[in-house]
């Protein structure tokens, strides 16, 4: 069949190859279908656009990478062919068959090893343009565009043993371990036996696979390559339907061996084969790789492979103990110069079949160094016979580690392509060595050999041989390149398996907000109302009437126990011991570096019991911070997170008191319920802890209550406030209201090193306390002049955007952290960091992007723009 014309077929039995319908046979892979149809050039090489044809047929080389149904980088030799599939080659202009870019193969002098480090450096403006050209011309597929979002699931498995590789060794290991009562998962990138040529070995593997499938403690995952071995060990296994994250007790790596890659001039011509690939094509798919096959090499499998080719109809000549000096041909091999028994002979052939022995496919084994990972079969004893592989597997199944053998290295290559993936030649290695890159790892990084899709499966040992020869011909002395995941190519979709969504927290009022037409926005982990309707209506409702907002997102904690007071006294920079029951206090939370971590309230409930609040986004961090200190101090203190359990609704505005008194028998009068007090009340029949505070600068209470009653309370407030001008409001109104009061928001108006002094909040810190978290750092820093400070700014002109640079004396002195136009003040206000100019903080700044200086002039003012005396909140 070799060389026959492409067969046209009906679409139902064919795949589409670059516009042609190619017929399929049962069991075909994409590679076998294309080869049967006469395709010989499967790809063009990465850099020089050299023709590449089928070579290994075991997924170990880059030659058959094609685009299948829009997905680039698919190994045609491992991918089952399906009717209707669309297949195209990935590179070549105007086509892979007639590629004008192959001129690059004559311009090696222009593209020396490491050229990207040496050239295209200057002029810098040229590089982005050249980069586009380089990207368009290199032998890589095109990333799919407008691909629909597909969420791949991930699943976790926890077997006692994971066996990677379902060959004779791997399956023997699995059956032995399962026989000893252990749970076993076996994964293989193909179907067991599928990559072997028909014969005794394949039959034995299929028998073992049948036993494994029938065993109750064995799970066999087919077409599921292991991606890598991570700490744990954790082994991601990429199965067709989902990504398995396997957490085994131990791992047996039985990934076998790959046949030794031949490196000589012309070794990458189409028609040069590794013998397993050629035999598989002939034996499994009934397609001979050529009519005149020359088999060179003394591998133990070579006679069998030669016989398979002969049976398939090829005229076979075998040169058992010979080497190939070069292969020649234009679009494929036509002749080879072979040396054997001291003589050289030129032999005509259209298939040169290499049987030079085997090298371990040991990438995963090397990744597993230091972890409970053992090897079995060819991967530790390349070239071992079937019985030895099974025995090795049985020992590994019992966790008897076999010491990896150190196979002899090949003769260091003199000429030819060493790394098929990256087009690295023997000359490139010599040039790199001359330039001083004199180890396997340095050569790898400089030349990129071993860094392509095959991850060094073919070229790594040639790289080692090259180095070993120069260091004395010693294999261990040559060392090895670091093996890293992924061992096999994976898609971005695979990487994202199981991560297709963002955790979104909602308060109990979420559904009600949506019903009421709120525009929701992400706020940290939360989804919160940004607004319900017109922002100005919401704003004026708070300033003139009454507004309600959902603040159930606040971090809420109970701290109790005999050590609770001592704990908080050490934790907070404010005094806590003088806080009587029923009172609350604003406080900062500092790290031991003295920087502000969060802020919130501390409410005293009893002698040994406190209720704390933190910012909406800061609760988890504050909790971790508190638990760390509680552990460190060893105090008898209990910490209960009540964030999800308790809802909270803020009622603010001149009408807040009237509204609450309509719904409650409790008094909210100023003398009965003063500012900065809290108490238990019942509002609309809902038990609440009411906290009187003033974040937005108006008379206000927060009602903290069981979240299962949030909707009931919210509805009651809105209904009762109907004739008081009540409006629900969202975050945007809240941001404006608090800014008019000059309150900074942690995370927005602070940065990673904001001390209280930097925020002009020294008043919240009592340095005369004996000790608190961050005190030592603050004392040290108090002797250092403050160079940067958060200031309040009143602007004239347009409202500058948040983040706008601030300027003084012609240089940038800071940036705006918050800014809004204040409807009640009728001018823009903001907070921003400024640095000193000529020894002092500038009294005035301008805000504007570079080139637009002076767009808004700002004057530094006292912090609170609105009601600076606080009469409204205390009313």
């Amino acid at each position, binding site marked *: 069949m070799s060389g026959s014309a492409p067969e046209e077929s009906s679409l139902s039995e064919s795949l589409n190859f670059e516009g042609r319908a190619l017929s399929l046979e049962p069991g075909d892979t994409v590679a076998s279908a294309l080869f049967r149809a006469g395709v010989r050039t499967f790809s063009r090489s990465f850099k020089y656009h050299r023709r590449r044809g089928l070579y290994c047929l075991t997924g170990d080389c880059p030659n058959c990478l094609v685009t299948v149904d829009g997905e680039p980088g698919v190994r045609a030799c491992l991918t089952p062919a399906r009717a209707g599939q669309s297949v195209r080659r990935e590179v070549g202009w105007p086509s892979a068959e007639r590629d004008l870019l192959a001129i690059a193969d004559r311009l090696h002098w222009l593209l020396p090893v490491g050229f990207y480090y040496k050239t295209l450096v200057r002029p810098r403006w040229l590089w982005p343009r050249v980069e586009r050209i380089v990207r368009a011309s290199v032998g890589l597929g095109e990333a799919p565009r407008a691909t629909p979002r597909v969420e791949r699931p991930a699943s*976790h498995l*926890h077997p006692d043993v994971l066996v990677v590789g379902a060959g004779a060794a791997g399956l023997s290991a699995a059956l032995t371990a399962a026989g000893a009562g252990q749970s076993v998962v076996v994964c293989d990138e193909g179907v067991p036996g599928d990559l072997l040529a028909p014969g005794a070995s394949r039959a034995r593997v299929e028998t073992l696979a049948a036993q494994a499938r029938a065993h109750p403690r064995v799970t066999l995952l087919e077409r599921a390559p292991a991606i890598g071995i991570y700490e744990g060990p954790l082994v991601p296994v990429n199965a067709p339907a989902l990504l398995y994250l396997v957490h085994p007790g131990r791992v047996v790596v039985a990934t076998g061996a790959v046949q030794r890659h031949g490196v000589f001039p012309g070794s990458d011509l189409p028609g040069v084969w590794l013998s397993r690939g050629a035999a598989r094509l002939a034996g499994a798919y009934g397609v001979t790789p050529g009519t005149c096959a020359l088999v060179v090499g003394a591998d133990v499998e070579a006679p069998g492979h030669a016989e398979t080719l002969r049976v398939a109809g090829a005229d076979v000549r075998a040169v058992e103990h010979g080497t190939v000096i070069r292969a020649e041909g234009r679009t494929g091999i036509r002749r080879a110069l072979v040396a054997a028994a001291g003589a050289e002979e030129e032999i005509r052939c259209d298939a040169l079949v290499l049987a030079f022995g085997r090298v371990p496919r040991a990438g995963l084994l090397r990744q597993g160094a230091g972890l409970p990972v053992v090897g079995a079969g060819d991967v530790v004893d390349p070239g071992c016979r079937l019985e030895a592989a099974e025995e090795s597997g049985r020992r590994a199944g019992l966790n008897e580690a076999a010491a990896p053998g150190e196979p002899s290295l090949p003769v260091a290559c003199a000429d030819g392509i060493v790394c098929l993936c990256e087009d690295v030649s023997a000359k490139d290695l010599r040039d790199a060595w001359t330039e001083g890159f004199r180890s396997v790892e340095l050569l790898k990084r400089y030349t990129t050999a071993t860094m392509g899709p095959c991850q060094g499966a073919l070229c790594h040992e040639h790289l080692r041989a090259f180095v070993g020869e120069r260091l004395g011909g010693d294999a261990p002395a040559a060392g090895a390149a670091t093996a890293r995941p992924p061992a096999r190519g994976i898609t971005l979709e695979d990487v994202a398996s199981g991560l297709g969504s963002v*955790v979104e*927290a909602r308060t109990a009022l979420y559904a009600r907000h949506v019903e009421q037409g709120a525009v929701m926005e992400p706020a940290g982990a939360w989804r919160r109302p940004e607004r319900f309707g017109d922002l100005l209506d919401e704003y004026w409702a708070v300033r003139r009437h009454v507004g309600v907002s959902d603040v159930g997102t606040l971090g809420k904690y109970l701290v*109790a126990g*005999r050590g609770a007071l001592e704990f908080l006294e050490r934790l907070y920079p404010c005094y806590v011991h003088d806080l009587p029951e029923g009172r609350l206090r604003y406080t900062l939370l500092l790290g031991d570096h003295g920087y502000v971590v969060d802020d919130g309230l501390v409410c005293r409930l009893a002698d040994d019991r406190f209720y704390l609040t933190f910012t909406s986004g800061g609760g988890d961090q504050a909790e971790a911070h508190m638990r760390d200190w509680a552990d460190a101090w060893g105090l008898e203190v209990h910490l209960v997170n009540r964030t999800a359990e308790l809802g909270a609704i803020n009622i603010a505005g001149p009408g807040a008191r009237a509204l609450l008194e309509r719904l409650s028998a409790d008094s909210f009068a100023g003398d009965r319920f003063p500012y900065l007090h809290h108490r238990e009340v019942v509002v609309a029949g809902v038990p609440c802890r009411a906290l009187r505070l003033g974040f937005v600068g108006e008379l206000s209470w927060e009602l903290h209550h069981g*979240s299962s009653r949030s909707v009931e309370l919210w509805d009651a407030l809105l209904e009762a406030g109907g004739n008081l001008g009540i409006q629900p409001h969202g975050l945007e109104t809240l941001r404006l209201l608090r800014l008019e009061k000059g309150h900074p928001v942690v995370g927005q108006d602070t940065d990673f090193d904001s001390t209280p002094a930097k925020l002009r909040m020294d008043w919240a810190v009592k340095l005369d306390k004996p000790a608190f978290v961050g005190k030592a750092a603050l004392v040290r820093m108090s002797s250092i002049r403050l160079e940067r400070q958060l200031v309040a700014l009143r602007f004239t002109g347009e409202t500058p955007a948040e983040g706008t640079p601030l300027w003084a004396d012609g240089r940038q002195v800071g940036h705006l952290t918050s800014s809004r136009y204040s409807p009640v003040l009728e001018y823009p206000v903001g907070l921003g960091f400024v640095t000193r100019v000529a020894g002092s903080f500038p009294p005035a700044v301008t805000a504007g992007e570079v080139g637009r200086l002076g767009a808004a002039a700002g004057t530094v003012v006292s912090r609170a723009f609105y009601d600076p005396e606080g009469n409204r909140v205390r009313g």
Partner: protein
Amino acid sequence: VVELSASAATVIRCLGAPAAIEAPHAPAPGIPCRVAPDELLVLAPPDAGERVLAGLVDDLAGLDPSGIALDQTDGFSLWTLAGEHAGEAFARLSATPLPALRPGAVQGLVGRVPAKTLVLPGELHILVASTVGHYVRERILEVCADLGVDETAPQEFRGAGVVV
């Protein structure tokens, strides 16, 4: 098939000195789970919640007067998985291995959300913060769609026993 249902349960958090938490009375019905050296989480049928809470408060008062027993039912969502593929569904959502013994309990992320999972014969109960309960349900429905998720009517938690 995986059966998914929301379960109603009273959730009581009990904090106290380790010795006090070590020997609380076994609330019946209900299942106490030790989740930290000084912390016990008790799941009880809704109609028994008050009785169980009162019992714990009494016990704790005698053993550790500064201990706390608190009904935090509002803070949690409880999702129950049952059916042949319940374990597979859980494995798609969590890296945490399930305990071999029943009743058993494990703590760890489920659908990237902190969770406590109670494993009873034939069913798994996943306890997560009520603020992310909707998210966990959506994840189960999405990630396990090919397993055939059958969402059944809410039920009342009826577990009893002591976690092994």
